[in-house]
């Protein structure tokens, strides 16, 4: 019995082991471990982090790319562009580019890709960046296209960085899991365990040092960090601050995210600006900062430094519990019902230590005498509170949120938060609406100054949010790789930029 059962066990284990495939790794192959499984590989969804980190600039390429340092658009598949009138842009395309299926890249392919995006026959996430603009594309000649919009588009070249160009053989009416683009890598396989991409020989640019990359996914940050440490993987983005313990391999970089609490100013006592200021003053920012890692930068506005319109001179709210108490007392004396229960709505898993941060903030607000109660919600429930139309029957509430603007311009922040019809906005102020509309239509230095003025006004007079921190991303890069993450790492990991050490 004893030896027989051991034989059975050994047999079972062996048979089981052979069922998997052994992963042999050679020197120019890399393994990347992501936090989440990509739901699909539709090139029109590259603004979704886990799709973008695999596809963007690896398999499919956009017309322009955003330079991480300056925030300005740089040539990619489009080599130069010109605004011919406020609603029209003309683009020159790169010569000698081929798709991975052999189809030539030309003006028709660009027209096809943009029309596929805007056609409405498939769910296209990237199109959201264009708002409700209607685009018409015309092929002027083989390598020139003209893009017309129904309203002025001063930053169209920036927007074109989300337009991923796909082969004209891609179906227009359904999302795909086998994208074909012009990038340096082509998709080899996509299974529930892994995505594998291989170097594409016909690539137009410089040959990347890496010849093959496989992507796997694990939700636990500590396990991902351990995988790079043990050499099972070469790179993992977005590890938690506490796992970034090795200065040799772990890089901290300001990503484009800003965390904040939105104040719903529509309900007493939050309709009183003194209470809203008190909320900002009551937080021990230095103590709270410990949850976000030593490098997180205290925020005074909703866009990160480097974004056009960010005001470096704007001071964040300080910690002053005494002043907060005084403001509350003042409001109470003026008849504001300061004892009303205020609901603090958090979202599970919004960022590392997000629930702890909410617990801490709740305790701090209670400490200055505000009746704040925390409710943690799942993403879908939380979304109801984030976007209009807001749920019926809500009371005074504070909402945990994180805003990501990596597109170089405050136009992707200000209107949605501070105009009457902005989808996250709890403000309705015609004067502010007008100010925003003017800023949006302006260009150059005036645009920068106008956006700054709005951020100042929001910080000092409107106070409908509590900016917390400009977030830090931590990425662990194995010793084999020669690469540093930057502000774009949250949306793309271009393998062509990664060198190999010997």
């Amino acid at each position, binding site marked *: *019995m*004893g030896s027989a*059962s051991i034989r*059975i*066990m050994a047999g*079972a*284990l*062996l048979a*089981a*082991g*052979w*069922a*998997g*495939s*052994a*992963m042999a790794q050679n020197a120019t192959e890399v393994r990347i471990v992501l936090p989440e*499984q990509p*739901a*699909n590989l*539709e090139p029109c969804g590259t*603004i*979704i982090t886990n799709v973008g980190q695999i596809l963007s600039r690896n398999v499919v390429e956009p017309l322009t790319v955003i330079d991480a340092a300056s925030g300005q658009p740089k040539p990619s598949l489009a080599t130069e562009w010109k605004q011919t009138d406020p609603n029209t842009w003309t683009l020159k395309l790169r010569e000698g580019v081929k798709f991975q299926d052999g189809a030539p890249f030309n003006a028709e392919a660009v027209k096809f890709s943009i029309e596929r995006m805007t056609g*409405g026959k498939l*769910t296209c*996430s*990237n*199109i*959201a*960046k264009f*708002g*409700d603009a209607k685009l018409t594309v015309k092929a002027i000649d083989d390598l020139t296209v003209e893009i017309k919009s129904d309203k002025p588009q001063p930053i169209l070249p920036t927007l074109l960085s989300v337009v991923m160009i796909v082969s004209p053989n891609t179906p227009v009416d*359904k*999302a*795909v*899991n086998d994208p074909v683009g012009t990038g340096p890598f082509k998709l080899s396989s996509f*299974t*529930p*365990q892994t995505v594998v991409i291989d170097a594409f020989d016909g690539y137009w640019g410089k040959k990347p040092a890496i010849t093959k990359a496989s992507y*796997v*996914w*694990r*939700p*636990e940050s*500590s*396990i991902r960090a*351990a*995988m790079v*440490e*043990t050499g*099972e993987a070469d790179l993992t983005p977005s590890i938690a601050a506490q796992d970034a313990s090795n200065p040799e391999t772990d890089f901290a970089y300001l990503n484009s995210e800003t965390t904040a609490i939105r104040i719903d100013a529509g309900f007493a006592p939050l309709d009183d600006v003194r209470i809203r200021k008190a909320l900002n003053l009551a937080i021990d920012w230095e103590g709270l900062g410990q949850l976000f890692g030593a490098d997180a930068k205290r925020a005074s506005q909703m866009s990160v430094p480097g974004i056009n319109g960010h005001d470096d001179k704007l001071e964040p709210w300080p910690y002053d519990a005494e002043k907060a108490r005084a403001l509350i007392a003042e409001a109470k004396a003026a008849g504001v019902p300061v004892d009303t229960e205020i609901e603090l709505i958090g979202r599970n898993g919004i960022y590392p230590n997000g629930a702890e941060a909410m617990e801490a903030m709740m305790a701090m607000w209670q400490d200055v005498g505000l009746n704040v109660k925390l409710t943690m919600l*799942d*993403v*879908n*429930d939380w*979304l*109801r509170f*984030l*976007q209009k139309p807001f749920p019926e029957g809500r009371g005074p509430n504070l909402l945990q949120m994180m805003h990501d603007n990596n597109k170089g311009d405050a136009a992707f922040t200000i209107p*949605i938060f501070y105009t009457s019809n902005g*989808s996250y906005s709890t403000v309705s102020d015609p004067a502010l609406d007008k100010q925003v509309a003017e800023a949006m239509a302006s260009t150059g230095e005036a645009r920068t100054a106008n956006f700054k003025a709005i951020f100042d006004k929001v910080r000092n007079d409107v106070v409908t949010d509590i900016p917390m921190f400009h977030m830090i991303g931590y990425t662990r890069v194995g010793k084999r790789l020669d690469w540093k993450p930057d502000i774009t790492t949250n949306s793309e990991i271009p393998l062509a930029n990664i060198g190999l050490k010997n």
Partner: protein
Amino acid sequence: MMLGYIGRRAYHSILSVIGLLTLVFFLTRLTGDPSALYLPLDSSVEAREAFARLNGLDQPLYVQFFQYLRDLLSFDFGESLRQHRSAIDVALEAFPQTLKLAVVAMTLSILLAILVGALAAARPGSLFDRIAGLVSLAGASTPDFWIAIVGILVFAVGLGLLPTSGTGSILHWIMPVFVLMLRPFGLLVQVVRGTMISALASPYIKTAHAKGMKRRKIIFGHALRNSLLPVVTVAGDLTTGLINGAVVVETIFGWPGIGKLMIDSIIQRDFAVVQSTILVTAIAIFIVNIAIDLLYVGLDPRIRY
């Protein structure tokens, strides 16, 4: 007689599966509209309406339900919102991964539990009995995700003996199987030990003793045979519970099984996949239950259906 029994069980099972699917259909629909999850945060109301129309979510609930039933009859299980492909394919692809894990874990649990339980029962109250009892119970009493993460930190990071996670070589199996085994093993040891002690005290074993049979033969040959019945019962119930463990194990070790798939699809409100995974799991569990009943007949000639 036997066929009639299987037929009756199958009929009951089908009723139960239909009940389950109905329940799940409405429960999942109550968890909210998925469109907000699939569209970018700043998309327009029109875009959301278009999404709902595209995926048939704009219809009244009962219309959606009848549509679902009609599709079921033609073996159309709907399309995954996340993966843009047939939901049942997604579920069937993940299922064998969990099945393999469960079969290995359960087989090892049963064999080891019989061995340890029988040895413990041979000398009740001995040091081995006490230690085996305590260790197996402690294993069954620990949160599995905790053991899993500690295991990775110790064996993969600290000692470098095993891979952290994933699938592939035989080494990848060790930790997931071990974690999954803890609970069934711990409970089965108790069951085997208890029934063996009763069996060893029964008159016919005493007779065997008196006849001068070898102790080992008595324990593993006669007493064990008699205690297999309750082991089969408990093991059957534990198999269902194993899927609970599999959810946690698959999440931590990145095992692409049906538990992980189920969690992801519930979080992502991918209704068609939730329903398909439930269908597949429920059918598998019914098959296990029927198999156990048949095993009873094999083990105990007194039972007839």
